[in-house]
């Protein structure tokens, strides 16, 4: 298992390295980084000085070394709009996104898991088909359209929820629904598939034959085995939550990472864009790694399989 985790760690580092390299190359390809990353009104003398300190007159490979060093020290330039370190601006937006994301995920699990399990247990009935319809809806509905429908319903017709801002808990309801409902659909679908697969396994039949009650089979034999793939699936969904947050936060004026990224792109505040992309890549890679570790701990076969495969 140690070996498995090491392989995963190396892969995570490689992924991070590729993303950092991609951003570095993008900056170089799109023009003079000093011109891009410094505010337009910077005096030429200051610009030249900064160019030198970034090593822009040196060979590309040396520049890359300096770039990596700067990133490891967390210095990614200053925001054009308020002159604060770009990393600080990004880090300040994280708690709000974390709050929104975790609530949305919790909501989606509370709704999606039971629906998926019920659908699997009532396989090929109208309940099953209803859940599947919800799931298809879940990955087809545009998040921004769902947001607008919710605003029309809760803010403009019923007038019970605020449509923008983050001052109170009531402000959290619509963003969580927007992000959580499609996710619930996808989780329900995945849970159903996963549960159906496990319920068809011989050990379930053995448990039933031994006289274990239906509920016991579901809770003690099926659930732990169906949980493992689901956990891996949630690791993938973290990316979808971050992507969805970009739209959701913008619509509801929720001051998180997604809205920051979109607004920075709109005004071309490139240091902040760069920092936001690197930070979100870091979050994705770390969360994928965490889910991998969970997976290996919960399912001892994983380490062994990786071992025999490599």
């Amino acid at each position, binding site marked *: 298992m140690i070996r498995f985790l090491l392989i995963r760690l190396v892969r995570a580092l490689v992924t991070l390295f590729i*993303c950092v390299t991609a951003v570095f190359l993008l900056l170089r390809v799109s023009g003079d980084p000093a011109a891009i990353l410094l505010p337009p009104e910077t005096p030429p003398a200051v610009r030249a000085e900064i160019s030198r300190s970034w090593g822009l007159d040196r060979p590309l490979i040396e520049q890359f070394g300096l770039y990596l060093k700067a990133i490891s020290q967390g210095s990614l330039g200053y925001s054009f709009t308020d002159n604060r370190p770009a990393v600080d601006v990004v880090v300040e937006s994280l708690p709000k996104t974390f709050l929104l994301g975790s609530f949305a995920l919790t909501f989606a699990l509370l709704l999606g898991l039971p629906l998926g399990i019920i659908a699997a247990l009532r396989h090929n009935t109208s309940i099953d088909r209803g859940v599947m319809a919800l799931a298809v809806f879940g990955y087809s509905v545009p998040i921004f359209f769902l947001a*607008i429908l919710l605003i029309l319903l809760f803010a403009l017709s019923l007038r019970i929820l605020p449509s923008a801002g983050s001052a109170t808990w009531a402000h959290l309801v619509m963003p969580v629904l927007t992000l959580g409902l499609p996710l619930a659909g996808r989780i329900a679908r995945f849970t159903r598939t996963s549960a159906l697969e496990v319920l068809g396994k011989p050990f379930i039949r053995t448990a039933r034959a031994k006289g274990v009650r239906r509920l016991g089979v579901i809770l003690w034999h099926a659930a732990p085995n169906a949980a493992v793939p689901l956990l891996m699936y949630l690791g993938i969904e973290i990316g979808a939550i971050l992507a969805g947050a*970009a739209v959701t936060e913008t619509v509801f004026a929720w001051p998180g990472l997604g809205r920051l990224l979109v607004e920075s792109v709109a005004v071309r505040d490139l240091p902040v864009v760069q920092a936001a992309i690197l930070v979100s890549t870091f979050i994705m890679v770390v969360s994928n790694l965490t889910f991998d570790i969970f997976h290996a701990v919960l399912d001892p076969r994983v380490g062994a399989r990786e071992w025999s495969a490599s």
Partner: protein
Amino acid sequence: MTSPSLVSGDTPKKIESRIPWLIRLSIAWLILMIVTALAADVLAPYSYKTQDLVARFKPPSWLGGNEKYFLGTDQLGRDILSRTIYAIRTSILIAIAGTAIGAMIGTTIGFIAARMRGWVDQTLMMLVDAQAAMPAIFLALGFLAFFGNNLFLFILMVSLDGWERYARLVRGLVVSEMTSEYIRAVEALGSKAPRIIFQHILPNIAASLVVQASLNFPGTILLETSLSFLGLGVQPPGTSLGLMLGEGRRYLLNAWWIAVIPGLVILLTTLSMSLFGDWLRDRLDPTLESRR
């Protein structure tokens, strides 16, 4: 395995060979969208730019609006029906181009990885993993920020959604095809690599590729409409379904139809494509894993 199991296996198959009504509806809607996209100039009663400032914020004619405007007008008195028709053209064509480019890039990379193996394969698959770890919309936002916005670049951005899925799929399929008897026979007969790829392997994996493309298409539409909705994709005076929705968002209180009509079109299109894609997968390629 004797006749009884064959008989019981036959009956459900016969039922399956009929196309379910939901799938028929989906196909009908998709055909309508494609026809609308191709014949937008003929179908639209007005230009998407024509303003009628006297008739601003008119509700759809069947809700007591102006007789001239079936789906109402927007904040500049532009006909929503005409704008939706032109927006369908923009969004559908961008999504088709994006899907095609993404499929080509991914397929090529998959073929290269499978043919070369070794370190080339490893490097390409690391790129695939890196892309899979990163939502396409973030990458697209980065590109737009660094390079600015133009239509060509925008289509390229949209094609980024899912290339890694084609690459992984094609690599796996080609690797398994390469070991099959018939390829070894063709190789023994002296066929060169390009001939093997285009004449033998590609036709055999085409069904899986079509299924993958149909499953990817909704994501591509959503990426384009999301970016346009955020004001970072198609720019005015152009029009796209996402852009209409983004503009209409400001007038929800007194003119909900500006946002809701293009929104419904997007929803019905992605929904139809998802249903159609799922059905196609079950029909053509039961071995392909469920997408999510």
